[in-house]
Every structure is written in structure tokens, then in C-alpha cells.
């Protein structure tokens, strides 16, 4: 049963998001982030973060309450302004040969015909704050390019 841990995680996530407010387009009609009650009652995090350059981070994650809150059945997909995938982190159990199974990532555009190659994680673990930081760094890198 929830005992406040989900709310604590929510506020960690929300304050991390506020720290990058300057590069978010919160007025975009697609921008969406849950209230704390939604996360508390649904045990899930669904968000669409729009960055100032039109890129977006799509978030779907189920939050399991154990000793700590852990994210499962998740997908974090970061798309550029043209809708091309930049990266994707998910834990679909489709790549048992990879270290860190079932957690893995995909890089670059999703292939139309070929298999979508999966890679081991390039982060220690997947959670909202970690992937938000990853997307933010990608956003800033693309501005410099």
C-alpha cells in the first residue's frame, strides 16, 4: 500500500523538472505532466515534455512500491522536432541476451524495414530524473551542433 513514497518520488521528479524549466515549452498544447494525486492514485507516470526546440520526451512508467519505488513496464522515448527518435529506454522483455535484461535502450531513428537493434543501458538505472537529465544533455548537445 502507498505510504507517501510515491508522493516523495513525485516531488523529486517535479523539482528536477522545474530545474530545467527554461528549456521547456510548457505552453505547447501537447505538454502534459501529472498532478501528485494522479501519480499517487494510479501508481503511474504519464508525461509529454516539450522542449523549446520542439523535441519531446514521452514518458510511460508504472511505479512499484517496494522498499523503494521502482519503475517497471516503462518506456522513455525522446523524439527530435521532426518526430525522429533520438533514443528510447524501455524494459520490454524482448532482448534476453543483453546485459541488464530486461532493461535496454535503442538509439537513433527507428528502422522501417530492419530490426530495431537494442543496446545495453548507458546509464546506471532508468528513472525519470536520470532520463530527464539524459534528454536535457541531448537537447543542449543538439543546440551546439
Amino acid at each position, binding site marked *: 500500500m502507498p505510504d507517501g513514497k510515491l508522493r*516523495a518520488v513525485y516531488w523529486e521528479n517535479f523539482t528536477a523538472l522545474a530545474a530545467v524549466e527554461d528549456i521547456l515549452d510548457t505552453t505547447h498544447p501537447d505538454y502534459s505532466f*501529472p498532478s501528485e494525486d494522479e501519480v499517487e492514485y494510479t501508481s503511474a507516470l504519464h508525461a509529454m515534455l516539450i522542449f523549446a526546440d520542439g523535441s519531446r520526451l514521452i514518458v510511460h512508467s508504472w511505479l512499484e512500491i517496494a522498499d523503494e519505488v521502482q519503475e517497471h513496464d516503462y518506456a522513455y522515448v525522446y523524439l527530435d522536432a521532426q518526430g525522429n527518435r533520438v533514443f528510447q529506454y524501455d524494459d*520490454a522483455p524482448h532482448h534476453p541476451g543483453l546485459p541488464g535484461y530486461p532493461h535496454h535502450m535503442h538509439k537513433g531513428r527507428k528502422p522501417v524495414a530492419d530490426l530495431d537493434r537494442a543496446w545495453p543501458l548507458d546509464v546506471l538505472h532508468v528513472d525519470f530524473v536520470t532520463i530527464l537529465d539524459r534528454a536535457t544533455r541531448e537537447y543542449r548537445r543538439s543546440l551546439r551542433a
Partner: protein
Amino acid sequence: MMNQHHIPLLKLQNTDVPLAELVDQYRGRPVGFEIASGEGVMLLLSSEDYNFVISAIAARKALPTRPARTPAEYFAETVRILHDLEQRHGMTSADFYRQFQEGNLQEGLADYWEWRTRYKSLLTMKERFGFSEAEAVYA
């Protein structure tokens, strides 16, 4: 002896963030008391706690969120979204989840990510609140 110079004082007054709720959120457990809105309160906080509370208040002011609803409303919304996904893809959510987890459905469709998480959310809410799909549909 505690050095009081390192313990900042935080005064919350006329804030739209109920203090008990804020403490509850941060501490991760119910605090078990209520403070009437509009009352001024003095708190002794560690520097870490103080910075977190300030960040939380700033975040709430700066960023929009979807409106808060009741558990029953969230459950009904989840049922409706799952129903739409089931209609669109021609299978039940339970079948979808089983087939996806077994690898019979690949990761291609964007719908799958939301479907997977919503289904787990549905199961969690049913267990936690005792809701049923029938109640959600006819509420």
C-alpha cells in the same frame, strides 16, 4: 550542542501549499495532523530539508500539471483508455499484456507503451481500492 546558525528558519504564511501536505510529501509518510490554511507556522529545518521545500514550492508555481481528480475518476479514465486501445487493436488488455511480455508483439507501435503501463496501473488500482471495471463504466 547543535549549531543553530546552520539551521535555517522557514516561515510559511498564506501559502497555497498546505504545510502538513508538504511535510507529508517530503517525509514520505503521513504526519497525522492538520494546519488550517492561512495560519502562519514557524519550522526548524535542516538545510537539506529547507532547500527541498523551497524547490518544491517554486516548482509548483512554475510548472503546469494536469488537474487532480479522485481515485474513482482516475480509475474510470484508465478503464476508458484501455477500452479504446482494446477496440483499436482488437484484443483485450490482458491478452495484449501477455503477448507483449512473451515477445509475440514487438515494440513498434507507440500505443503499446501506454497500454502496458495503463494495464499495470489498472491492476494496481483494483487491488488497492477494490474498484471493478463495471463500477467505472456505470458510475
